[in-house]
């Protein structure tokens, strides 16, 4: 059989492995698509991060500069402040670098930094181009972190508190339930599992009003616990942990029982440590969800001092007018922890999603 007859280029597009070494058009198509994807997915975020390092003046420029830039300055004898440098082309076509002392209308007064003793002379502004250089400005961050009595710090604290506490309780509570549902045979276990899984059908968007009522009855409106308690039981978490615990041999538990271990001690010393991989997956998803939560905090937390980072970020422009620099710095800071986490835990996260379809 002629091998070449069945090997059409399209093959490679579908089959995982392609036969030849030589790249064919499907490879170009694939790489073209992927590179375009990289631009579309990555560029917006990169742009925000780059922009967050721009000075306020740099941010207002249009068209925007790609990299953060600052005006190049020079110290000139006889002037207290550093003066911005300009590339000036004179009418005769001679290019010179001059320092601007002040600007008056369409004219600027400039001085030659090499020969300040020659004095100030007038230059038409349209013949001068400001000299810029790459400069990473951190003032947006320092301003943000110092501004308004440090409200950003309280938002950071609130978000971290919610994330850590909710995740810790989620892990403990869900693994307790999973333990009961995987390691005990008892009347009602099927109903209990079903009840837990049924809550998948009741997303927060559907029961927003009643949750608000219950939280307010518990006197937890504007309290961080008000956004923690409603979300700590996650049906997918229980399910994932249960499936994992089913793989832990019952003989281990029997051995522990004969070793005088109480049921709690069996859970705490034997089952929990052995379920670490599943716990890690549940923890990662819990951290992601709690850090990014928006709707529930939006309803429950109405005072700036209890705002989470997400709320503070969403509400930022309303209160302060638009201060793009700080807004961009805040966006970057809000995204940073999870982005870093993603870099290190990529494999875990994607395997978790692929095998459970939860987020």
């Amino acid at each position, binding site marked *: 059989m002629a091998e070449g007859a*069945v*090997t*059409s280029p*399209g093959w490679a*597009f*579908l*089959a*995982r*492995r392609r036969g030849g070494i030589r790249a064919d058009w499907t*490879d170009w198509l*694939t*790489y073209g698509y*992927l590179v375009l*994807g*990289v631009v579309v*997915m990555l560029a*917006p*975020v990169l742009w*925000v991060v780059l922009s967050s390092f721009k000075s306020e003046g740099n941010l207002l420029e*249009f*068209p*925007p500069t790609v990299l953060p830039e600052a005006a190049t300055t020079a110290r000139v004898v006889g002037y207290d402040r550093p003066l911005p440098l300009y590339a000036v082309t004179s009418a005769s076509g001679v290019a010179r670098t001059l320092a601007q002392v002040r600007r008056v209308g369409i004219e600027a007064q400039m001085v030659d930094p090499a020969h300040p003793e020659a004095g100030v002379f007038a230059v038409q502004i349209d013949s001068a181009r400001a000299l810029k250089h790459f400069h990473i400005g951190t003032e947006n961050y320092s301003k943000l972190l110092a501004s308004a009595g440090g409200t950003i710090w309280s938002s950071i604290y609130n978000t971290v508190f919610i994330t850590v506490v909710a995740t810790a309780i989620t892990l403990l509570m869900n693994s*307790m*339930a999973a333990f*009961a*549902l995987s390691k*005990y*045979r008892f009347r009602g*276990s099927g109903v209990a599992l079903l009840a*837990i899984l049924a*809550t998948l*059908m*009741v997303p927060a*968007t*559907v*029961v*927003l*009003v*009643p*949750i608000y*009522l*219950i939280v*307010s009855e518990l006197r937890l409106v504007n309290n961080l616990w008000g956004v923690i308690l*409603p979300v*700590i*039981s996650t049906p997918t978490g*229980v399910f994932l942990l249960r499936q994992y615990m089913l793989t832990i041999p019952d003989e281990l538990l029997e051995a522990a029982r004969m070793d005088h271990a109480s*049921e709690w001690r069996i859970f705490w010393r034997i089952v929990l440590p052995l379920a670490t991989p599943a716990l890690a997956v549940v923890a990662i998803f819990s951290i992601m969800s709690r850090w*990014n939560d928006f*709707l529930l905090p939006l*309803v429950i937390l109405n005072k700036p001092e209890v705002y989470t980072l*997400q709320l503070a*970020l969403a509400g930022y422009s309303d209160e302060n007018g638009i201060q793009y620099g700080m*807004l961009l710095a805040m*966006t970057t800071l809000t995204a940073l922890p999870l*982005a870093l*986490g*993603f870099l290190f835990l990529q494999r875990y*996260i994607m395997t978790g999603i692929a095998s459970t*379809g939860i987020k």
Partner: protein
Amino acid sequence: MDRGNRIVPWMFLLPNLAIITLFSLAPVLINVMYSVTGTDNLYPGERTYVGLANFATLLECGNYLEPATCSRDLFWRSVGNALLFVPTQVVVMIGMALATAIALNRDIRARGFFRGIFFFPVMLSPVVVAMTWLWLLQRDGALNGILGSLGFERVTWLTDPSRAFKWSVFVTVWAHMGFYTIILLAGLQSIPADIYEAAKMDRASPWRVFTRITLPLLKPVLLVVFILAVIRSVQTFDEIYVLTGGGPGTATKMIVHYIFDTGFATMPRNYGLAAAASLMLGAVLFVFTAIQMRISRSGGANG
């Protein structure tokens, strides 16, 4: 097992069941109570019974194709938006996710890198996503900068109803596509390579292989992904709330946004209407979730 230990599993289940009862089961019942009572009182006991009036109010319409003739035109506009938004967003997103998964499933260099790039927006919070695109789409933003450098006029991307709607679709696809890509990629990788080799021996054309082998074998996963996407798409709120605020006008207002507005943001708060709308949304989600659970139980695909 010891006989005295019959209560032990219930002790372990107790915290979970308590939370579920308090924040999932009870709320469903309370929602029903809200939906059949009126006034802006938060406490169900102090509300007056109005029967199905809230549902009637929401559903009352002179002409269902013309939201302006409805007694709650905002609700109908959000329903109309969803009817356009959900199919568009889901089809575009699943299509892109499938294309990306197929590309990533090929024998390419730096697969891990590309996969990471397509996935990472999933990690970003909805607010960060919206802020990112707001910054790109603003009047002096990067997109207009590119247009400007190409010699075009600046465009106000989010103040035109039709453009704002398209950007809402685009931004939500951008943010969530990676999630579905990963699931589909796992599905593709579970198709054994020797099936392709067998098809190759059978001289099947690439298109036939795609339609007769890849798609049928991927169908269970594709179905789960599809329904998952619909369930989430119907509930879309966060990104668009921050990106457009539902505007301009009501061009991008979604159902959850309507519920939020009615129940919390606009005074007086109309809990009854919000609850009635929630219940209707819940019924739709219930149907889809039930289908999804059925599929993931019968098919081999993990949902």
